[in-house]
């Protein structure tokens, strides 16, 4: 008679644990607007890498010459999974897909990862009280040189000092410069 409650307690504990884990997983935003921003024709990596032998030495790359690593003092295989190039690999050895690259970034940038999950770091669109659209870290930060790239600013407002009134016709009205800006981040 007395043993059953213990089992129940244990079951409850396991349940709560699972529930917490599930909840923790829910912290990750559900919906990403664009897929990971690969350079054209680069993915799947296994397309080239499949037959290649893994070379762990640091060296000048002959193919990915556009990539100059200005991030941390690391090397490709700190993040890219050597065995399956279509995946990434965490320091723990866990393999993750490119669509979950935020775990990789979150390894070092824990505070930013936390802010991002709360919707405070990074761009977020959609509904303020409904479905929200997220971006991956790599949508704004090229992982190999993650510093945000400078942009051309849109024109300053008209200075009233040189704002002498003139009557304008329809075709003299300036167009909105934001119309020419694509919503793409990079």
């Amino acid at each position: 008679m007395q043993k059953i409650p213990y089992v129940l307690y244990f079951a409850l504990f396991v349940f709560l644990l699972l529930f917490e884990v599930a909840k923790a997983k829910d912290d990750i935003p559900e919906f990403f607007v664009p897929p990971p921003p690969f350079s054209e024709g680069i993915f799947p990596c296994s397309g080239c890498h499949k037959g290649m032998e893994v070379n762990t030495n640091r060296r000048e790359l002959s193919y990915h010459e556009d990539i100059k690593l200005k991030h941390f003092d690391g090397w490709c295989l700190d993040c890219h999974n050597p065995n399956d190039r279509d995946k990434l690999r965490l320091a723990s050895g866990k393999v993750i897909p490119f669509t979950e690259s935020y775990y990789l970034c979150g390894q070092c940038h824990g505070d930013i990862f936390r802010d991002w999950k709360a919707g405070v770091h990074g761009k977020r669109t959609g509904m303020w009280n409904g479905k929200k659209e997220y971006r991956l870290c790599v949508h704004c930060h090229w992982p190999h040189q993650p510093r945000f790239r400078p942009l051309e600013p849109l024109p300053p407002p008209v200075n009233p000092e040189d704002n002498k009134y003139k009557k304008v016709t329809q075709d003299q009205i300036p167009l909105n410069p934001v119309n020419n800006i694509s919503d793409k981040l990079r």
Partner: protein
Amino acid sequence: MAKLLQLIKNFLVTLKFITKGSRWYYGWLAFLLFLITSGILSYIKQIDQGMILTNMRDQVSWGLYISNFTFLVGVAAAAVLLVIPAYLYNFKPIKEIVLFGEMLAITAIIMCLLFIVADLGRPERAWHILPIIGAMHFPDSLLAWDVVVLNGYLIINSIVVFYVLYRLSIGKDYKMSVIWPIVVISIPWAISIHTVTAFLYNGLSARPFWNASILAPRFIASALCSGPALMLIIFQIVRKASSIEIADTAIFKIAELIAYAMGINLFLFGAEVFKEFYSGSVHLAPMEYLYFGLHGHSSLVIWMWLALIFNITAFILFLRPKTRENFFTLNLACALIITGVYIEKGMGLIIPGFIPSVLGEIYEYGPSGIEKSITVGIWAAGALVFTLFLKFALPVYTGQLRFKTLGSHSEE
């Protein structure tokens, strides 16, 4: 019915009186009408194309119109300087001329209202500000208060002026028992119109230059300089142009009062200058702009120093009995003080409220042609109103114009 007929008859008599005059009179009217017409044409243009024709912009959103409005509220309020000695202290020489002060007040209020209308983006909606048919924001908005006190002052003074003139025109003296309660109200009311107008600016914490509690006292002090100075000049013209006796003692007494008012005004100004410059906080910027220029912008500097020199000179001229009782120096002092206060309380008060702007921008405002034309037009309208007032009141005063009342015979 007979009464109505009588009224119409009296009106025609009045009309005959005010439309008849010398060549100078017609010339003066034509000149004023010309300025008024050009003002109206400019206003029509402003209505048609919008206030973009002014040089006001978001950075400096009030300009010449509101500057003139502020100055003229002071002129209107200044009638009190005559009302107090005339009715409260029964000072005979001033009592004889107090009516002209009140007429000036009425004129000034009318001009104030015209300047406000000129400054509105949607004048046809002005009725929205009224109680009952509109949605007057009383007591929260000081502008609502201003509507109340300005119109109230207009009504009060109109009642006094028209009552006195009416009594005189039928050949009777006015009854003090009728005047007395209105006068008692009008004195604090005169102070209130200028206090409320000062509070209009004073209450805005966004504008540190205005947000100083010394503003209302300074308004009153400077109003008691410029308004009476204007009257002094008008009195001398009246004396020259009509057979009305205006005693020198009245003029000198008013000049003396102006000296005291200017003394207080200069003292309050000094207090403000000390506070701003000695503490040297970030709120110094507008004051610095006014007197020394800010970041290379200094279009008001020369005017402000001029105003200061004018005010101090006038103060000395009014203070010394020798110079205030000499008509040349007296009139010089009047002109200086009117100009000085006009600069100080007009553009010198409104513009630095906006420079630097709340976001730190400096846009140097100067009125556009349209603004100047409308402003001149409104001043001309004021001059016209006052001229017609005088044209009617002077003969009544001197007994040349007498209305027939029922059962009495014309004296003319």
